[in-house]
């Protein structure tokens, strides 16, 4: 497929954009990455995602697809010659969708709020995130069946949904001065995180933690002034 048939609108720091990139990499799809400028939105973005005006947007031919997990499923359904991202078993697919939804609806929103929170509220959020990691550790044990990933030998839907959030997890730990992913409590996940970040489909698109930290500091500073650019 010609490269310019597949475009991805995104920003380097966004975990949601990363999900799309990892998925395209897994399927060996050539695509053009169109980086949005933080703080402004291109005409193409506004046209292709008029409802949310957010990245990622996958543009296949002239068709825009929005919402990271919707994009991942689209990629899985269209490029069938590559490895499967979702399981072929219907029940396992439901489980994978369940955990991805849990991460997006409960876990990540709690984690992002840690740095801006104080006192009791902050502790509650930390507790929620740590409890969530315990649940994910259990799920990992169950679904990996001794292999490296939630998807088994290869990265799958849960790996992509969760692994893409690791960068921001590390930023929260560093800047929030809190330990979340603990080898003593969740050894499986710690090992999984290493394997995930080392994977060929992930390596080239996982931002360096130091860069994310700088970016995060910039965002926090802006928040004290103007509203932050939304990812």
């Amino acid at each position, binding site marked *: 497929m010609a490269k310019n048939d597949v475009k991805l609108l995104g920003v380097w720091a966004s975990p949601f954009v990363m999900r799309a990139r990892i998925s395209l990499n897994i399927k060996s799809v050539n695509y053009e990455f169109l980086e949005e400028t933080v703080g402004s939105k291109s005409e193409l973005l506004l046209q292709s995602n*008029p409802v949310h005006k957010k990245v990622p947007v996958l543009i296949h031919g002239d068709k825009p697809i929005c919402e990271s997990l919707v994009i991942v499923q689209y990629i899985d*359904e269209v490029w069938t010659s590559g490895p499967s991202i979702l399981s072929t078993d219907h029940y396992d*697919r*439901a489980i994978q969708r369940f955990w991805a939804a849990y991460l997006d609806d409960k876990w990540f929103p709690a984690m992002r709020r840690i740095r801006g929170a104080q006192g009791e509220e902050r502790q509650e959020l930390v507790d929620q995130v740590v409890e969530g990691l315990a649940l994910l550790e259990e799920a990992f044990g169950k679904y990996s069946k001794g292999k490296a990933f939630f998807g088994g030998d290869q990265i799958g839907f849960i790996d992509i949904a969760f692994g893409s959030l690791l960068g921001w997890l590390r930023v929260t730990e560093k800047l929030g001065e809190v330990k979340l992913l603990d080898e003593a409590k969740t050894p499986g996940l710690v090992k999984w995180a290493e394997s995930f970040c080392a994977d060929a489909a992930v390596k080239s698109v996982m931002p360096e933690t130091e860069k994310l930290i700088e970016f995060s500091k910039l965002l926090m500073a802006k928040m004290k002034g103007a509203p932050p650019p939304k990812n």
Partner: protein
Amino acid sequence: MAEVKLHGRWYSPFPYRVIWALKLKGISYEYIEEDLSNKSPLLLQYNPVHKKIPVLVHSGKPICESMIIIEYIEEKWPQTPLLPSDPYERAKARFWVKFVEEKAPAFWSLYRSTGEEQKKALKDSSETLKIVEEQGLGEKKFFGGDSIGIVDIAFGAIAHWFGVFEEIVEVKVLEAHAFPRLHAWKVNFEEVPVIKENLPDRDKMLDHFKKRRIESLSASQ
């Protein structure tokens, strides 16, 4: 035929989505009413993460989250498809399912709030209706085209319960003159036999949510 069980609660919109999907596909199932103030050990076992209904149990295996259950049902029983077969059309349908789910809290909060909070709920739900009407539904009869699909089911539950809340707080938002196409859609949706025959008793609903509104408001004082 492997057994299908659905754990639900009669006044919650979420199990109805699943009921509609099962009925549209002609799948027999056993319905189990859960008492949410006294959750059964079975529910806690099936849904340890959220401890919520609905839970679909197929051959002893639990599936949670109404829209995830529906995707499972769709894949397991492909007759009377609720999702298009084209990947791009499927992506659009999933986009709208996610959108209405994210915006649903404003609709639920209508019966729980007063004053400023209620004004905000009205404003937010109105804005959502506009986007859904103009960009989601467009000129189609149903979100699924000529027949109902996954988006109709997802939003239909929200819209129906919203109608009950509008009646309780005596404010109409989803009105024909403000949202002509969406209003027509709701009327058509609720005329579909499977939907019409599978809605909770309206008087019971009004009674239940009126009580809950009183409880909600006195709790927040």
